[in-house]
């Protein structure tokens, strides 16, 4: 399906010393998931947020586990890069502090040369599809195991945000569709306003036990 040679070649039959016989891959694309019967653990599996999430008094937090998360790096002044991404993803690459929403994916602006795509499609296929279209200077990194997405919702959800972060979440400053990376409790999160009372929080795996504890502490006492 994919013409690109992957680093799967690096098994015993294709020792790197013999690599001059084939065109070397520029980037190591790897299918990191298995279809086998293997237990996966999401970053919040051992916390109150696992399974059905946690809710109280107009605030609810659930995990949207096992999404594919890919970091896209590239130059916004490179038209080829922009159009390759937009063709492959069938989505606009969002402007500064914005997101774009597709049927199966959201692209988040992270930095002037960085975006995050979160999708319920397979990470390997998504990356391969993007790499097929891309050329020139760019980077794609599968970070699906390194972070997870939480959905914070409810009429009091803003109260949790105001306790966790110094940022101004007022609708006048934080309209639907906006995304920021900011301080969250004593860690950090990427925060996207999905609708008036729905917020996506993307947090790093290693901080997720701490953040889940913090969120639980807030929600049970709110």
């Amino acid at each position, binding site marked *: 399906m994919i013409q690109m040679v992957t680093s799967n070649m690096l098994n015993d039959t294709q020792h790197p010393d013999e690599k001059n016989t084939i065109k070397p891959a520029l980037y190591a694309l790897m299918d990191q998931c298995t279809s086998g019967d293997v237990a996966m653990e999401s970053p919040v599996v051992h916390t109150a947020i696992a399974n059905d999430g946690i809710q109280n008094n107009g605030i609810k937090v659930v995990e949207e586990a096992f999404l594919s998360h890919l970091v896209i790096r590239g130059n916004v002044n490179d038209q080829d890069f922009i159009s390759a991404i937009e063709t492959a993803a069938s989505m606009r690459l969002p402007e*500064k*502090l914005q997101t774009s929403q597709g049927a199966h994916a959201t692209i988040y602006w*992270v*930095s*002037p040369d*960085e975006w995050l795509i979160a999708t319920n499609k397979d990470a390997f296929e998504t990356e391969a599809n993007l790499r097929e279209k891309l050329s020139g200077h760019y980077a794609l990194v599968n970070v699906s195991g390194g972070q997870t997405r939480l959905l914070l919702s409810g009429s009091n959800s803003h109260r949790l945000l105001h306790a966790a972060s*110094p*940022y101004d979440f007022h609708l006048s400053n934080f309209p639907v569709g906006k995304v*920021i*990376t*900011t*301080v969250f409790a004593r860690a*950090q999160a990427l925060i996207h306003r999905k609708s008036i009372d729905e917020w996506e929080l993307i947090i790093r795996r290693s901080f997720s036990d701490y953040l889940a504890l913090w969120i639980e502490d807030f929600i049970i006492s709110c």
Partner: protein
Amino acid sequence: MFYIRCPYCEEHRDEQEFHRVAEANLVRPSDPDGCSDQEWGEYLYFRKNTRGEYNELWVHSVGCRKFFNIQRNTETYEILNTSPV
């Protein structure tokens, strides 16, 4: 607690999202090996550390991760300007 405008995010953010890196506009000599100990020492160690208006390099570490310049007053803590590197 500073309130700093990131020139890349084009928004003011709380100081907690940033940290200071160095004096601004330090330029690595193009030929380090050709530098005398004196010249290399100037680059490595000597800083203006001005009282008053001062240019510093900061990074939006909990944010866009970009480095940028701050022109600020080290006496009054007023930030006069921020600009991309």
